[in-house]
């Protein structure tokens, strides 16, 4: 368990014109679970390899418990990593795989045996200890890979997209396992993923990266409810947030925007007072599927809630609810509807817009307009 500070990390690959990492600053508290999330090519794996020491950084420093480790060899950093491909040594048994790092570090045989058994118990792989990795299923290999990392009791654990090679069901199971493990061991974990659901469910805090720059660092709730910019808003959440171009208007009852459905009918939506300075200007309205639903009696009295009739273009039943697409201002908008009151495509539906949690963005800077 250790505290990790990334200070202005920069990385330019030899021969590359652009920086891959453009000054990343993140403080990770001891025992914290941080996920690095972003689209492929955003630099998250580079950042992870840099923390591990597998790649040298061209600027900044990596500090663990107050000690700068930027120049150290990977083996001296006391960091363990779980790889996407598991990277188990194919010629060694599970036991030897877990023991390899301990053996190299010169731990006495008896202690190694105990440590391997402790880890095997923890991950429920005791029965597999004498098997070769190639005989194991993907999920079992995943456990062994984690066991190898756990055995050394390092200061920091790095997970590099560890679940992306598993099938969907197993991925969800292992996700829960990792979360349980973290709650039990309270270790410092940096977890890279491109899957925003994994990021949301696992993390204490999420760091969203894009093009080598940190877009936002915050708790899952912060990142989801108050995204810093259009990119974060669009990246986090599934189905993702819909963005509608709207003009802020001033009326007697307050500020509002109007949206036009595919049949030409318009609906006026109330917007919060902090858009005062934007009256008469164009903004981007970010609205999540759960903000548009079937009418709910309990919400109806709220001044920030409105209803309107719109034609449903597409419906996608997911089981617990139905995702419907309507068109507002020539943009597809996803709505999350109750599965008990199904709507067919082409039909008109009475929809309720809950404007309390919608967000607005400056079309120029693409940054969120803050209250």
């Amino acid at each position, binding site marked *: 368990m250790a505290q990790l500070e990334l200070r202005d990390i920069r990385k330019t690959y030899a021969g590359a014109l652009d920086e891959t990492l453009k000054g990343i600053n993140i403080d990770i508290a001891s025992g914290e679970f941080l996920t690095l999330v972003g689209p492929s090519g955003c630099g998250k794996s580079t950042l992870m390899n840099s923390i591990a020491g597998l790649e040298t950084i061209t600027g900044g420093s990596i500090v663990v418990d107050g000690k700068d480790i930027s120049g150290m060899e990977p083996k001296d950093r006391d*960091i363990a990593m779980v790889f996407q491909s598991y990277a*188990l040594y194919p010629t060694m048994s599970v036991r030897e795989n877990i023991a390899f790092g301990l053996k190299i570090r010169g731990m006495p045989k008896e202690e190694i045996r105990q440590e391997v058994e402790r880890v095997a118990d923890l991950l429920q792989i005791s029965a597999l200890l004498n098997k070769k990795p190639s005989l194991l299923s993907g999920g079992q290999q995943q456990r062994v890979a984690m066991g190898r990392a756990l055995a050394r009791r390092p200061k920091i654990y790095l997970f590099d997209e560890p679940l992306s090679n598993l099938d969907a069901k197993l991925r969800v199971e292992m996700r829960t396992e990792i979360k349980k493990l973290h709650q039990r061991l309270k270790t410092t974990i940096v977890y890279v993923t491109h899957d925003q659901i994994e990021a949301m469910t696992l993390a204490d805090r999420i760091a969203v990266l894009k093009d080598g720059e940190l877009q936002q660092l915050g708790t899952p709730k912060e990142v989801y409810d108050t995204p810093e910019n259009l990119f974060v808003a669009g990246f986090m959440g599934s189905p993702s947030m819909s963005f509608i171009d709207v003009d802020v208007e001033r009326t007697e009852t307050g500020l509002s925007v109007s949206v036009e459905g595919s049949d030409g009918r318009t609906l006026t939506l109330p917007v919060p007072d902090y858009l005062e300075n934007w009256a008469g200007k164009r903004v981007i309205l970010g609205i999540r599927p759960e903000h548009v639903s079937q009418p709910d009696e309990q919400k109806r009295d709220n001044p920030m809630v409105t209803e309107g009739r719109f034609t449903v273009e597409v419906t996608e039943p997911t089981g617990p609810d139905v995702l419907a697409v309507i068109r507002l201002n020539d943009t597809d908008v996803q709505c999350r509807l109750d599965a008990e009151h199904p709507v067919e495509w082409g039909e008109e539906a009475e929809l309720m817009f809950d404007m309390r949690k919608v967000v607005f963005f400056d079309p120029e800077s693409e940054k969120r307009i803050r209250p």
Partner: protein
Amino acid sequence: MTDVVRTGFRPSRIAIYGVLLLACLVYLIPLIIMLITSFKTPMDIRTGNLLALPTDWTVMGWTKAWSTACTGVQCEGVKGYFWNSFKMTVPAVLISTLLGAFNGYVLSKWKFKGSDLMFGMLLFGCFVPFQVVLLPMAATLGKLGLANTTTGLVLVHVIYGVAFTTLFFRNYYVAIPDALVKAARLDGAGFFTIFFRILLPLSTPIFMVSLIWQFTQIWNDFLFGVVFASGDSQPITVALNNLVNTSTGVKEYNVDMAAAMIAALPTLVVYIVAGKYFIRGLTAGSVKG
């Protein structure tokens, strides 16, 4: 299902197998003639049919070729040269294979500035004909004091072979995931530990490919043998040439054939023993983690 069974009796099937059998025969005839001739008496060879089996089976040709046939002035058979070839081939094969493995490891897993260029230039070495290096190599061996020695010959074959073995191992190791090396580095393994504990144990198929390739190349080499070795250190290929070309008295085809068989046997044995790995190694794409 019945269709499949019935095809076995179709005339086209018979024709295909007939052609295949014929092709096999064409390939086998030289070997058959060599084998049966080596067991014939000189009399039998002169009077009988080339393809006929020996009337009197005798190993006289083999024993003579092994221990008493004349290779130039000496008449001690090819046995000394046979061992010469071993003394040259075994170390040359092992050293060039190990060096190749090591080069391949560095060029695939520890890339440095210019490593790809270096690999490209090494590849170039595969296309350099033997004849081109004869003179410079002779000068080098002379300067090193290794002219006309088995050690010198080993050195020549190692240098010449490293280009090929590096190519084999480098391409094999490229397919092994880098994550394996990264994981080992984080586990605390150093440069050599990773090579010996992680990569070499994975290398059996390509090791066999390199072994067979190098053994065949070096054992069968004539040019380097005839140029860089003389007298007692000559390999069997040179001795075979001398034996066949020694023109005193009647040509003893049975001895020639037996000597040729002796010269060819070791490569055959290597192929039979390690052959199954050869194809496997050549087609091995990746290693499953």
